[in-house]
């Protein structure tokens, strides 16, 4: 190896090869983790007296076996994917957003209010407007936590969880009070839900006779858009630089507080859109809750975190990951019906997958790390700590 040689062409070839091997390793490890989790799930099924092979087959058929099933899976995957994508964005700026639940709620509320205020607008205007309102609401809710972290050093993990609680209370107040369906009041049933929102805001169905709607396309678009934002724009570059290293970012003149806030705002916007899609893509076409903290979201704000983790916090890998978890939700119902297995098993299975995938990160880092080109950044100096 020539000493003053600037660029070693020989090394480039081997790099491509090692990169491919690394990519395969990086793909196989989480897959193996999922399989291990399913294996333990099989033991659990056995102990419940169910046949794991036919059980898993039932699940798979229900979720992916027919176009209808896939349509259901896709719908379940929408909020998971959007939350996951938001988690990816925040993570790249080294911010952890546990506030997907609250941001979904606030986004959905703002979108609902817009739909109530302008019911007569044509679909072409109203649909973009409600989606935008969802994004704005979620972004606002996320930005609060962001600003608290950026300027007052408040842990975003705590503040986002707290803001979830606040958002749910605001929702309960609005859906039981000002926004409640007048018919509910008249009937005296008082279910916390709005009236049927303007049909001009209904998300169009993609395939006739199925429930799959425009939300699927929007969620996919956001995943691609987030990838583009993070790796192709200067905005995303700044987010990632701040996430990797605040000191170097400051050196380069990138404002750390602004970008931390922006990261949570982007992340919140994704959740807000998910909230709006839950409202306008639902069959009842209204915003509805049962008064519990996850009554509106169905815990998507938390489950989306798992989606992002399985995807290695990459927005594009979040797509198959969201489909997997969406499929499990659909499959679980089928399994419950077919084998009389409590659906809590699926929650346990989800948990197992998370534990295995997160633990596999250790192996991924050990096996996927690139060998150094040179003999390292003056290793003897680093060894000084032993001396």
């Amino acid at each position, binding site marked *: *190896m*020539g*000493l*003053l*040689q*600037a*660029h*070693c062409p020989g*090394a*480039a070839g*081997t*790099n491509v090869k090692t990169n491919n091997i690394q990519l395969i390793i990086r793909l196989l490890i989480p897959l193996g983790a999922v399989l291990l989790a399913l294996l333990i799930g099989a033991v659990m099924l056995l102990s419940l007296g169910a046949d794991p092979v036919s059980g898993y087959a039932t699940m798979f058929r229900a979720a992916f076996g027919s176009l209808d099933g896939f349509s259901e899976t896709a719908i379940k995957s929408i909020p998971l994917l959007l939350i996951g994508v938001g988690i990816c964005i925040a993570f790249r700026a080294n911010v952890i957003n546990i506030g997907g639940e609250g941001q979904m709620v606030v986004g959905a509320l703002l979108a609902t209010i817009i739909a109530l205020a302008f019911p007569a607008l044509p679909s072409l205007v109203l649909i973009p407007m409600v989606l935008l309102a969802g994004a704005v609401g979620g972004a606002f809710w996320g930005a609060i936590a962001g600003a608290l972290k950026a300027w007052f050093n408040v842990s975003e993990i705590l503040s986002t969880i707290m803001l979830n609680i606040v958002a749910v209370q605001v929702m309960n107040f609005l859906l039981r009070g000002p926004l409640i369906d007048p018919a509910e009041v008249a009937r005296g049933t008082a279910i916390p839900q709005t009236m049927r929102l303007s049909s001009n805001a209904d998300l169009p169905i993609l395939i006739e006779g199925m429930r799959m709607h425009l939300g699927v396309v929007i969620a996919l678009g956001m995943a691609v858009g987030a990838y583009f934002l993070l790796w*192709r*724009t*200067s*905005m995303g*570059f700044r987010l*990632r*630089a701040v996430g*990797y*290293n605040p*000191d*170097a*970012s*400051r*050196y*380069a*003149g*990138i*404002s750390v507080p602004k970008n931390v806030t922006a990261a949570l705002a982007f992340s919140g916007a994704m959740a807000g859109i998910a909230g709006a899609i839950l409202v306008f893509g639902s069959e009842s076409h209204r915003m509805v809750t049962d008064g519990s903290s996850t009554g509106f979201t169905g815990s998507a704000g938390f489950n989306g975190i798992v989606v992002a983790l399985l995807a290695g916090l990459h927005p594009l890998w979040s797509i198959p990951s969201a489909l997997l978890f969406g499929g499990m939700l659909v499959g679980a119902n089928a399994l419950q019906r077919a084998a009389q297995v409590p659906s809590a098993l699926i929650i346990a299975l989800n948990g197992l997958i998370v534990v295995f995938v997160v633990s596999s990160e250790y192996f991924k880092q050990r096996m996927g790390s*690139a*060998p*150094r*080109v*040179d*003999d*390292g*950044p*003056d*290793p*003897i*100096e680093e*060894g*000084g*700590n*032993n*001396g």
Partner: protein
Amino acid sequence: MNTTPRLELQGMTKIYPSVIANDSIDLRIYPGEIHAVLGENGAGKSTLMKAIYGVVKPDRGRILWNGKPVVIQNPAHARKLGIGMVFQHFSLFETLTVTENIALAMDDSPRLEPLAERIRTVSADYGLPLDPERLVHSLSVGLRQRVEILRCLLQEPKLLIMDEPTSVLTPQAVRTMFDTLRRLAAEGCSILYISHKLDEIMELCHNATIIRGGRVTGYAKPAEESAAGLARMMIGKELPVCSQKRPQISGKTSLTVNNLSTKSADPFGTDLREISFSVSEGEIVGMAGISGNGQQELLYCLSGERLVDDENVITMYDVPVGRLNPDQRRNLGLGFVPEERLGRGAVPGMSLTENTILTAHRHGMVKNGLLRFRRAAEFTRRCITGFSVKCGSIEDPITSLSGGNMQKYITGREILQQPKLLIVSQPTWGVDIGAANVIRQAMIDLRNNGSAVLVVSEELDELFEICDRLIVIAQGRVSPSLQVRETNKEEVGLWMSGMFPGGPKEKTAHSPQEPGSHVC
């Protein structure tokens, strides 16, 4: 002289996945010998020393210790054999005393009072007086190095490895250390001396092993060689020489600092006191000083990473910039190379190309908010070719570069942007002499094209080679400026210890000078 070598390496080979770090290296050092290991960055010196100190296991080869083959398991084993090592970077706890720090590094846990007594006697004995009760944070860098050396001496080493030991010392302190090393050698201790400063090696060392590309390219008696001859063996070709030709430019004032005083954010940092100086277009001003005397704090203020209260205290081209952030200052033409390479000058985790975008994005790498990777790649390629950066590919993570190569890359990235004002901290720190000359030449060219350059460095040789004027920083105060032609290393060395007009250790009893009233 004893005929059994204290240490003999036979065919030492260490292979890393992408590079052969050491290729059949033979080395022999006798008792009482001061032996230089000369080589550029990445030549394999570090790996070799790590093998001797038991940090890495060689793939092939034998180590003979006093004629007997040994396999050195780990640093503790090496210490037990009698091998001591003084690292370039200290691993000391600032809030502990000298004695406590030394006790921590010992393999048995000694009682502190007798240890303090031993430190006092041994240090006085070797002409390195040191108060064992002092807290490390109150020690200058030179004294901290003494702690590291004493740490080794207390274990009565038979072989002492010194890694670039003089980079933190004033010329006067270098003399003291040389005396100590000669005294140690006279007592029979062998010393492996790693340095790229050829004049030091020629003065101090009996023998030298020269390594290039992982192989031994020669053995020499430094005293009988010329600096150019040693350099040739080290880099395999003639040393590029900096051309000192310069046009006479009487440029505008580029940077002024007027009476800057700040409290350091770091409890162990240095407060800046009434600092005033200026840098004009067409000149290189060097700031000499032992590190830890306020350079860090001053550079944070100059770069904009730390804002000062009064915007008028710092101006760039007559624009008050004290309240502008780094980005705004860069828009005014500032380029800046910080001392910390990874984690400040570069983002670990990003590739070389992305790290180019980090500061060079204003040179056509962003259009309508989108990144233009082709432009960034082109710039990066120019940087690695122009500054001899050794790397696999420009898409590799920046962390795959060795320290010296990262330094070359960051310095190159800033210089290639053709800044109107370049501020550089330790431009050639850890960089081999061939590439160091490329960096120096690039700074000279920048000056000759009318830019202003401020170089903050501990290396007086370098400052004297490239600078037009020198200022000295000591304990947060900056000296009046000196024309390089009218001063010498001895004077600057004295000033570095604070003895300058208006300095902290000024002997004459006149009051500090009015801000701005410079000698030159």
